[in-house]
C-alpha cells in the first residue's frame, strides 16, 4: 500500500518503514546481515504499531478516524449490501452528495440506508463537500426515513462527518431546521434503527442520522459534541491544544460504551481499519445483522416507546440535591 499520509503519532513507524524500504532496495543476495536487519525491522515495526495501538489516546483515535484511506460509507454500502438502489433529492432544493440515501439488502434483510459520504481523492471530496452535508442532505435523509417508516423498512445509518457544512448557504437554507426535523423524525421512526459510527461523528451533523435503537462504534471512530480543535479554540483561543481536550470530551467508542450510549465496539486492527478493511467490513456486517435480528418482531408502538425510553435515560443530572 502506497504510504500517502502519515499521522503525527505514527511518525516513528513511518521512519522505520522508510528505513526498511531503503534496505529492501539494496541487493541482499550474499548479505545475510542485511537480510537479518530487514527481518528485525519488520518485527520492530509490527511491535511498535501493536504497542502504539494498544493504548491510543483520544486525540490519536480522532486522527485514525480521519485517515484518508479509512473505509468510507461507500465501501460499506458496496461491500455489505446487495441490490442497492440510491434514492436522490430532497424534493425541495437539491441533491446533496455528502449524504447517501437508498435501499439495500443485507444478509437477506431489506433495509433503508443513510450515510455521510466523504469522497476518495480531492475531486470526489469537493463534489461531496468532504462529507459535510448541507440542509438538502438532511432533508433527503429525512425523506428516506419517512419512506422507511411508511413501508416498515429497518434503517441502517453510517456516521462519518465532521459535521454539517458551516457555510452561508447552510444557514440561509436553515440547516438547524433541517437537522431538528431529522431528529424529530428519526427519534419517532416506527422501524428498527441501527447506527454505525465508522469514522467521524461530529456534532449535530452526525446526530441527525445517528440516533437509533443500537449504536455500533468502530474502535477508532468518535462521536462528539464538538471537534477537539473547535473546543480547544473556544477554551484556549488556540486550536492546537486539541490533544488536551479530546479526552475530556468523552468522544471515543470506549467512552460511549461506558456512558451507555453505544452498544458495542467493532475492533480495528493495529494501524486502523484501513490496514485490513476486509476484516472490519466483515465484523461490521456481523454486528449490524445481529442488531437487526435483536430488534425484530416488535410492534411499531413498541419500537417507538423503547427508543423514547432509551433516549429518555440519556444524561446525568442532580435532582433534589442528589
Amino acid at each position, binding site marked *: 500500500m502506497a504510504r500517502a499520509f502519515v499521522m503525527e503519532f505514527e511518525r516513528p513507524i513511518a521512519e522505520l518503514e522508510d528505513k526498511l524500504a531503503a534496505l529492501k532496495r539494496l541487493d541482499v543476495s550474499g548479505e545475510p546481515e542485511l537480510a537479518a536487519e530487514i527481518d528485525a525491522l519488520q518485527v520492530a515495526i509490527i511491535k511498535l504499531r501493536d504497542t502504539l495501538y494498544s493504548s491510543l489516546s483520544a486525540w490519536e483515535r480522532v486522527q485514525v478516524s480521519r485517515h484518508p484511506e479509512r473505509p468510507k460509507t461507500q465501501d460499506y454500502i458496496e461491500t455489505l449490501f446487495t441490490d442497492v438502489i440510491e434514492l436522490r433529492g430532497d424534493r425541495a432544493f437539491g441533491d446533496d452528495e455528502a449524504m447517501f440515501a437508498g435501499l439495500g439488502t443485507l444478509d437477506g434483510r431489506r433495509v433503508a440506508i443513510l450515510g455521510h459520504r466523504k469522497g476518495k481523492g480531492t475531486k470526489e471530496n469537493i463534489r461531496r463537500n468532504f462529507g459535510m452535508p448541507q440542509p438538502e442532505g438532511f432533508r433527503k435523509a429525512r425523506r428516506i426515513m419517512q419512506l422507511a417508516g411508511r413501508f416498515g423498512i429497518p434503517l441502517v445509518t453510517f456516521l462519518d462527518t465532521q459535521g454539517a457544512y458551516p457555510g452561508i448557504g447552510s444557514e440561509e437554507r436553515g440547516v438547524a431546521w433541517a437537522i*431538528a426535523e431529522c431528529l424529530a423524525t428519526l427519534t419517532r421512526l416506527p422501524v428498527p434503527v441501527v447506527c454505525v459510527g465508522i469514522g467521524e461523528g461530529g456534532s449535530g451533523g452526525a446526530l441527525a442520522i445517528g440516533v437509533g435503537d443500537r449504536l455500533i462504534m468502530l474502535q477508532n471512530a468518535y462521536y462528539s459534541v464538538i471537534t477537539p480543535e473547535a473546543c480547544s479554540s473556544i477554551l484556549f483561543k488556540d486550536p492546537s491544544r486539541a490533544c488536551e481536550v479530546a479526552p475530556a470530551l*468523552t468522544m471515543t467508542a470506549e467512552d460511549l460504551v461506558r456512558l451507555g450510549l453505544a452498544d458495542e465496539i467493532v475492533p480495528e486492527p493495529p494501524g486502523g481499519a484501513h490496514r485490513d478493511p476486509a476484516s472490519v467490513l466483515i465484523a461490521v456486517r456481523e454486528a449490524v445483522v445481529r442488531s437487526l435480528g435483536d430488534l425484530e418482531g416488535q410492534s411499531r408502538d413498541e419500537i417507538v416507546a423503547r427508543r423514547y425510553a432509551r433516549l429518555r435515560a440519556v*444524561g446525568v443530572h442532580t435532582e433534589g440535591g442528589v
Partner: protein
Amino acid sequence: MPISDWFQAREERTYIPVDSQRSAADLPDGVWVKCEGCKKTIYQRDFEANLDVCPGCGKHADIDAPTRVLLLADAGTFAETEADITSADPLRWTSGKPYATQLETAKAKTGLTEGIITGRAAIGGHPVVLGAMDFRFIGASMGSAVGEKITRAFELALAERRPLVLVTASGGARMQEGVLSLMQMAKTSAAAARLAEAGIPYVSILTNPTSGGVTASFAVLADVILAEPGALIMFTGPRVIEQTIRQSLPKGFQTAEFLVEHGFIDAVVDRRELRDRVSLLLDYLNPGGE
C-alpha cells in the same frame, strides 16, 4: 427560586451602569444604562419600564429568564417546576475552567439552579407550560440538566394537555458534558415530536442569541416560531463560517429578520407585544382532542 424572589433578581441584573455607584435595591434617578444599539444613555428606570427596549432605537437588550417569565405570564400565575434539577459534573471536566466552579459561579451570579426556568403559568388566561432560558447561566448551554428540564416541560405539557411556550437563548451545547450534551438534542427533539403527535400546541420564541444544538433541536420544532427584533439565531456562529469560507458575511446575516425572509420564522414580534401575540396565538391553537 420562588416567584417572590424574582423582582429582587431583576433588580440585581448587571447592566452596564454608567454610574458605577449604582445601588441594587433602590434605584435613584441618577442610574443610567447605555443602549448597545444607539449607544445613548437611558435612565435605567425608563429602560426597565420599557421592558429593556431602547425607547430611541428599539434595540432589544438581552433579559434574564425570571424577567422573561414576568413579562410573559399573567401576574401571579407562574408556578415553577423541576426547580431542584441542576447539573452534575458527570465527566469531572477541568479543561479551561473546571465545570464545577463554573456551575457554582453561575448559580451565585444568577440565583438560578440552571440555564432554564420551567413551570406552569397562564398567558392571557390560557393555562400553559412556560420555559425561559437564561443566557447568564453558562450561556444557557444545553447540558443534561437543561435537556432534562426541557424534556420534562414537554412531558408536562403532554400530560396536562397544556400548550407549551418556550423562550430560547443559548450558546448551544454544553461542551463540558461532552457527548452527553450532544444527546440532549435528540432527547428534547424526541419529546417535541411526541408532543406534536398528540396535537398539543407548542410556540417557541427565539431571543438573542439562540445557536448551535438548541437551534438545531427543540427550539425550531414548534408549531409557530416567533423571534425578537434583531435577535441572532444560527446553527454555526459567524466566526466559524468566516474562517471556513474565507469571506465576510452579508449584513444582517443570521438576524431574526434575515430568517423571516428566508422562511424560517413566522414573525418578528416586539417584546412589548409578545404576551398579547402569544395569547392570541393560543386562542387559535387549541390542544386537539385525541
